[in-house]
């Protein structure tokens, strides 16, 4: 396929001067159409290392671009722009600006793991998608996704008490994502629970909202988990040089 193929020309790269004269010749309007270069002028080796430092991205360097992941992808079937093979390549070559063009669709991976089974090199593309979404969030390119917020609320509770309380999870999730708690489907669900659940269970569920039960002897496990999570987070911050980014932003202000 020739590299000047029309579908590769991006509207924002087209330059047309309404009034332009070159060496005495009037080339106004379409005569002066100029396509800005899309030449790759350098590789950024740090990018692959950053993604590889996040959970799921460890095996990205194995990719040899066969396309099995994209070909087997559930989301790609619905949206041809969802192309894990391509993003893996952009990351490996450090074409950051190109990757950022797709930041709004990368998180749409549904983790079906068809790619994981199709990949001949065990790249685990599903993990790479997860790491890439994570990277986009950590770097501030995309806001925290709802699923990430849900995961955080869920794990905060488990880390703290060793237990999960559904009512609290749901309330916090709606609050943190700025959604109204009074969702018609939720009201309907609660109504039916009240109607159909045995009274003893309802009482216990209701009480759990006030007394926060804990798993017996949980504090040891909690400390170990918290230590591990802190370790991982600091490792990720370091790998992505997030503190440098923050420092640079502070200086700019």
């Amino acid at each position, binding site marked *: *396929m020739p*590299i000047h*193929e029309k579908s*590769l020309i991006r509207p924002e790269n087209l330059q047309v001067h309404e009034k332009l004269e070159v060496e005495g010749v009037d080339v106004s309007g379409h005569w002066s159409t100029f396509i800005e*270069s*899309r*030449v*790759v*002028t*350098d*590789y950024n*080796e740090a990018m*692959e290392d950053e993604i590889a430092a996040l959970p799921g991205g460890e095996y990205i*360097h*194995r990719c*040899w*671009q066969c396309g099995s992941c994209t070909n087997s992808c559930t989301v790609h079937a619905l949206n041809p722009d969802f192309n894990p093979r*391509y993003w893996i*390549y*952009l990351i*490996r*070559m450090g*074409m950051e600006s*190109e990757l950022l063009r797709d930041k709004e669709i990368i998180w749409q991976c549904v983790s079906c793991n068809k790619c994981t089974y199709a990949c001949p*090199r065990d790249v685990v593309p599903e993990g790479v998608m997860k790491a890439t979404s994570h990277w986009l969030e950590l770097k501030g390119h995309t806001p925290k996704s709802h699923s990430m917020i849900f995961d955080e609320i869920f794990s905060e509770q488990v880390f703290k008490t060793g237990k999960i309380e559904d009512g609290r999870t749901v309330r916090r999730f709606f609050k943190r994502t700025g959604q109204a708690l009074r969702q018609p489907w939720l009201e309907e669900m609660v109504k039916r629970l009240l109607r159909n659940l045995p009274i003893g269970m309802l009482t216990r569920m209701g009480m759990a909202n006030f007394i926060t039960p804990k798993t017996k002897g949980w504090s040891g496990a909690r400390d170990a988990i918290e230590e591990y999570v802190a370790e991982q987070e600091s490792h990720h911050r370091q790998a992505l040089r997030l503190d440098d980014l923050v420092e640079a932003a502070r200086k700019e202000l």
Partner: protein
Amino acid sequence: MAKPILIVGGGPAGLAAAHSLATFGQACILVDKEDRLGGAPILEGYAKLVPSGEWAKDAIGGMVDRVAEHELVDVRKETKVTEFSGEAGDFTAVLSSGDSVGVSAAILCTGFSHFDSANKPEWGFGTFPDVVTTSQVEQMISSGQGVRCPSDGRKPQRVAILLCVGSRDRQIGREWCSKICCTVSANMAMEIREELPDCHVYIYYMDIRTYGLYETKYYWKSQEEFKVKYIKARIAEVTSDGEKLIVKGEDTLVKRPITIPFDLVVHAIGMDPNVDNPDISAIFGVDLETHGYIDKASSYSATGLTNKNGVFVAGAAIGPETIDDSIAQGKAAAMAVLEQRQLAARLVS
């Protein structure tokens, strides 16, 4: 005693043939145009060989020593065959030294010539000092100097290895695949990453042909353990911005032109037919095949046969060949010579 066998060329194939014949009590005359035996691995100063990982000077050096020391091998260095006449079992070879020797058969182990990168001027060899060949990098490694930019001796930060330089290219009349450059380049990339862990190595390829078991040992290993990057692009030209080399081409996977700065560009040069092949063909009466290599007859009756009875061929004289396979072919040709002698003896008696 039977007449000696003439072996032309003292590289891996010739050394293997001479050793086999001498071991079976067959005298041979080994001629080589160079002042040293060992062929390309020694003359070009190869570092570690594929796939053994042994240093060329030890591995091939050992083959040289046992042949040079053997009483049944008459080694003639800096010598060429200028005339070759007679028929199978009774040839006369005139050597450039003036000697005339009677031999019963000849094995041509005349090898190949490395592609001269100057024939591909758009890739910068000869124009920019930091554009080098795989042979030069082999020498940097085998000499112990390490991989450096020839212009100022600095350690490269980023190296490009261009595959198929002098191979698979109709523009320069070289349509063959040189077979081993992919594997050698993957190995070299790992050696560079090992010596200079901060140096990134990119391999520009059309296809990767690390065939057979080389797939995991070189291609996969270079990617998985050494993080060598492979980019599917045939490079259009190598230029310079005055500071760095600029490699231009199309990255076919993103369908974009690339102009990437590099410190060192390595040409993975292919194997040409030996430049002396037209002379060899005329002197020994052997045909050349369409690419210019010595034409080998079919292998089913005996190995290493040419169109001329009593003249055998082995190794990279037949086409691009690995060192291991050249050695095997040298031994196979030696066996074919002994077989033929045995059959002739039986017919006479």
